[in-house]
């Protein structure tokens, strides 16, 4: 490499060296600053969590806001150094969460005969609230979803399914729902709990064979549907208990 001679060359080297020094100094300050900010933030968050522990535990709206705040800054309250994560560490929410999990299992298992192991989220929240003897709104959909996450290590196959239209279902059996079955669940939701072959064929453009196969599988193999053979218009209707609205 050709190097310049004379004063200019010397200057150039010195300048770049000084720039490098400055740059590393700057980044060091930045890292220090960031680190102190992080410590500050951690302290503040744990201080906040400790002072508002009661509100977080008892007030669903507050809990929701706190959860949202955590997720917007990229903190997952369920993750953490200890089992149970932040909820357990900062809020003592671990027990509450596990307890809710047990009650979710209770409801899912006790309604399984009826719904074949798939329950609508709203219904699950309602039944869990009833079990806890609390008014509606105290346990939220979000709490249930979080609790189901804590159940995952058990490998029982509890899973939240999004069936579209803002509707969620909780599956409590280790059974894969294929895409067609998910569509059927969603359409049955729209109809208020039932579905017939003609609707699926018209709305989804499915062939008769595909429709019948999917419905009969749900009916016979999975027990996710009940048959009604007295339907006035279609003769044979499939009712999905997890999509039916039960006033009990």
């Amino acid at each position, binding site marked *: 490499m050709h190097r310049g001679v004379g004063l200019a060359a010397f200057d150039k080297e010195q300048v770049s060296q000084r720039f490098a020094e400055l740059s590393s100094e700057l980044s060091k300050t930045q890292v220090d600053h960031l680190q102190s900010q992080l410590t500050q933030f951690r302290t503040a968050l744990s201080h906040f969590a400790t002072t508002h522990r009661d509100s977080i535990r008892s007030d669903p709206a507050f809990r929701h806001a706190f959860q949202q705040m955590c997720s917007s800054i990229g903190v997952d309250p369920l993750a953490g150094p200890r089992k149970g994560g932040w909820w357990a560490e900062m809020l003592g929410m671990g027990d509450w969460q596990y307890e809710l999990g047990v009650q979710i299992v209770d409801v899912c298992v006790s309604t399984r*005969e009826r719904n074949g192991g798939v329950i609508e989220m709203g219904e699950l929240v309602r039944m869990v609230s009833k079990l806890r003897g609390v008014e509606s709104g105290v346990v939220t959909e979000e709490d249930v979803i979080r609790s189901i996450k804590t159940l995952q290590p058990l490998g029982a196959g509890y899973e939240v399914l999004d069936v579209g239209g803002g509707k969620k279902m909780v599956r409590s059996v280790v059974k894969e729902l294929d895409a067609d079955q998910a569509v059927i669940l969603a359409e049955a939701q729209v109809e208020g709990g*039932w579905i017939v072959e003609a609707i699926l064929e018209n709305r989804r453009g499915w062939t008769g064979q595909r429709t019948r196969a999917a419905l009969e599988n749900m*009916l016979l193999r999975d027990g996710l549907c*009940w048959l009604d053979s*007295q339907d006035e218009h279609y003769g044979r*209707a499939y009712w999905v208990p997890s999509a*039916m*609205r*039960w*006033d009990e």
Partner: protein
Amino acid sequence: MALSTHTTPSGFLLPSIHSAPPFFTEQPNQTTHAHLTEQWTRLILTYARHKRLFVLRVEDAEAPGSDWDEILRNERINRRILPSYLSSLMAAMVAKNIAVYEPAKQTRAVLLYWRLPEEWADVLHSWATATGQLNTILTFYEISDPPIPSPLSGIPIPLLRRAITILSRSNRAQIIGVADGEGVRFFVG
């Protein structure tokens, strides 16, 4: 459509499942079938107790106008149980010993045990004791159709005979032939 409970004209509270159309169809899936059979069985027995009905026949599902219309039909959703389904429910109840084919050797009518014969035996003995009729001879007719309504009013004779047989095993009753048929004498238990 929300599934809700409903109170019938006779004052019976129907469970919300009774407003679900598929409740009236015999289910092809075994688990579902078992679940709904249990719901139907419970409904039939509680309704029988409510209206003091002792006998259920396949014909009750064949045409309207039977004592069972309030549960075997649901006009609000235009559904009714089909005779074949009712017949299979009756078979399930007989298998669980909460009903018996009466008379025997046919499958079109059952006698319902919303109280088991053992329970009827206790009711019968308490009634005889409370009304001061121990040691006197009573005809079956005097028990099933007493001048003052009793917990035993309307009890079918075959069921009454079963209850008395149970009591006689513990020497609390004795069947006696009387002029116009059969009678019974109760003893202190």
